[in-house]
């Protein structure tokens, strides 16, 4: 099939000849909206600082929680070892006393 002269080719050629409206001057409303959004992005408001502060506080809280967990684990592990030694001594005494 001759694709140059088929209906689609003729339709596309005709459509390409259609005059296009020249881009007009930027409407004031669009310009104002875009610049307002740009301005607000340029200057972060106080809520951004609050969010950053809360994020730092949350990270600190996590670090403290992990440190306290680690400390407690060591204490618990230490007491468990001590308890084992006492149990052995207790059992020795019992076997010595009982007939």
């Amino acid at each position, binding site marked *: 099939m001759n*694709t140059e*002269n*088929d*209906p*689609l080719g*003729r*339709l*596309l*050629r*005709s*459509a*390409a*000849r*259609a*005059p*296009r*409206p020249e*881009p*007009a*001057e*930027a*409407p004031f*409303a*669009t*310009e104002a*909206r*875009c*610049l307002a*959004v*740009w*301005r607000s*992005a*340029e*200057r972060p408001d106080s809520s951004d600082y609050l969010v950053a502060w809360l994020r730092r506080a949350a990270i600190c809280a996590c670090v403290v929680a992990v440190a306290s967990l680690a400390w407690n684990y060591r204490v618990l592990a230490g007491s468990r070892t001590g308890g084992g030694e006492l149990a052995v001594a207790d059992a020795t005494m019992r076997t010595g006393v009982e007939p």
Partner: protein
Amino acid sequence: MPACLDRVRKGDEDAARLLFQHLYPLVIKIVRSHLPRRMAEEDLAQTVFMKIFANLNQYSGQAPLEHWVSRIAVNTCIKALRAEKIRPELRWADLGEDEAQALDWLASTDQELAPDRSLASRDLIEKLMAGLNPKDRLVITLMSLEGRSIQEVNRITGWSQAVIKVRAFRARAKLRKALEKLMKEERP
């Protein structure tokens, strides 16, 4: 323009206004060519400008600013077109009188359409293209309607030359099929 960009990056509002006014004709031209059916061109242009301003720090200055802006605009349009989930099949009843006459002419003769039919042709081809996916639609608009070369399409979209050729071939085949189907359809 580089000085203006530096001033925009430093927060100079006058420079931002100047940049907006300089880029507006380019952006609105791209937006008009690839506008989804149910979206206002000003809304889409605003989205494009938001992206331009938000990413201005990423613009290195190696390529011309217009190329960088064109790519942002085209990608934004593709995204907006992709959001249009429904791609309706065109029927005779959807055509205006001038579009129907143009279609009749195409079906009945082998001759070119008269110059005064160009607007009707443009409307008809846009209705047919509404059934294509955004990338196919883009490649037809850029190459067949705007007459851009493969190199230009590559610069605007970032697609390789092989991809552009294949996509253009497939898009035209889909469009041809849709047109032929419409021409064979019973008129109301």
